[in-house]
């Protein structure tokens, strides 16, 4: 007589959601509200990280190559630098590139460097960017040891302060997200507790008829999942609309345009946010329903 009662449990879950419309909509509204706040912090955090990455990739060091280095030594150096842990990109600037960029900077006043074309005083160099600004010092140490390196120029102070800021922002968003998850679980478990309380009679009858705890939990967990998924979809739509309008107005501001920074498009993070919401919604639903039922399963 063992029978897979999965279908029955899912049916009961849906029936309960449909029957307890007020309770369900209250849960969904609360869940949407917490998810919206959560989503806002998540998006802010993601974008700050994104901005920090852009800023980080613009920061780097110039490795000046010795005047007498041979072509072999130069290309050898590139391979060695590439292998150092923490190096993101390495770009070669020849003497001619350096001269051209100085010329461009001088513009009308390029007469000052007239004749440099014949005898170019600028050295060959590599521009090295980092994957993580915290590795700045180590990478510099290692590059200095290589043959053919004349010197390294970098704005070390800027790099280290940027690294500290990035770390601080990451820690803060992570801490906020943790607090929000705990608050969400608390609120949802309280809401489901109300549903469980409304159905305590049914639960006690189930216990007397010989239902296992797993069987009794089934419909409530299904209910939690339904509430979670519905809230996730609603919140995603609201957050999407809000995000797009906020981002458009931020990007049009002159400060941001000057800094040459872009933000995520909503479509870039849509899948990620959807996953986060679905996992969060079902997770909070399941954990919430289990927490709120413990007391009533002890008959």
């Amino acid at each position: 007589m063992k029978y897979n009662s999965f279908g029955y449990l899912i049916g009961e879950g849906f029936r309960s959601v449909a029957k307890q419309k007020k309770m369900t909509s209250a849960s969904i509204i609360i869940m949407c509200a917490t998810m919206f706040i959560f989503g806002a912090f998540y998006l802010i955090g993601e974008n700050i990280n994104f901005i920090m990455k852009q800023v980080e990739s613009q920061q780097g060091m110039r490795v000046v190559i010795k005047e007498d280095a041979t072509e072999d030594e130069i290309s050898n150096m590139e391979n060695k630098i590439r292998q150092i842990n923490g190096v993101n990109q390495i770009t070669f600037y020849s003497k001619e590139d350096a001269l051209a960029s100085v010329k461009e900077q001088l513009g009308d006043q390029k007469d000052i460097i007239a004749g440099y074309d014949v005898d170019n005083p600028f050295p060959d160099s590599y521009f090295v960017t980092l994957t993580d600004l915290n590795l700045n010092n180590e990478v510099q140490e290692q590059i200095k040891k290589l043959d053919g390196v004349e010197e390294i120029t970098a704005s070390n102070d800027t790099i280290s302060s940027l690294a500290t800021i990035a770390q601080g922002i990451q820690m803060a968003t992570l801490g906020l997200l943790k607090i929000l998850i705990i608050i969400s679980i608390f609120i949802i478990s309280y809401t489901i507790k109300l549903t469980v309380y409304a159905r305590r009679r049914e639960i006690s009858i189930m216990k007397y008829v010989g239902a296992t705890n797993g069987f009794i939990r089934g419909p409530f967990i299904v209910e939690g999942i339904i509430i979670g998924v519905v809230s996730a979809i609603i919140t995603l739509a609201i957050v999407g609309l809000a995000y797009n309008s906020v981002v458009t107005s931020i990007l049009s501001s002159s400060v941001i345009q000057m800094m040459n920074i872009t933000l995520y498009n909503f479509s870039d993070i849509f899948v990620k946010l959807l996953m986060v919401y679905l996992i969060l919604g079902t997770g909070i639903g399941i954990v919430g329903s289990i927490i709120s039922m413990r007391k009533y399963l002890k008959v």
Partner: protein
Amino acid sequence: MIEFRNVSKSYTSGLEAVHDASFSIEKGEFAFLVGSSGSGKSTLIKLILKEEEPTSGNIIINGKDTTFLKPSRIPYLRRSMGIVFQDFRLLPDKTVYDNVAFAMHVVRATPKHIRRQVPLVLSQVGLAEKAKVYPNELSGGEQQRVALARAIVNNPSMLIADEPTGNLDPNTAWDIMELLNEINLRGTTVVVATHAKDIVDKMNKRVIRIDQGNIVRDEKGGYDGEI
């Protein structure tokens, strides 16, 4: 079938509800459990259902000592018994049919089995034509019949009834008692806790009397003694 060996039960408040109770109810027997309110009757029922744990002694059900039963096995113990309460305990938002079918879903019966068994049991308690009706449209006696149908739908080996006629008028109460007797004649062990003197006298079955936690009488007869 149900055996109590020197069972005592004290609550944390210090009250000793059952003191050194020993008795045995055999397979197919019909037994009344009588006593005034607060005598320990309800505690005895709770001990059989394993809703409460005995403080000392052993309770053997269907040949198994349930004293050290793991909590996760309790549902399976309860499937061997049908339970009926004074207040019916039906689900108001489910029809008569669904209330009975519910007990079968809980033990994971197949839909096919449920469709066969539920009408059968409903006609056994005389409610075949009320299958689609909701509990609040039924009389008290009819509601208790639904509860009885739910209790026996999984063919339990014993039926435990806690004051099954407490909320019913005398005529209806007697109908329910006859139904319990019928179920007993089909081979199910029946234990009825009650203080309905006239019914116990009329039935003339085994009577276990409990008074202030002690079993003071255990013999066939009426509420107060042999008839």
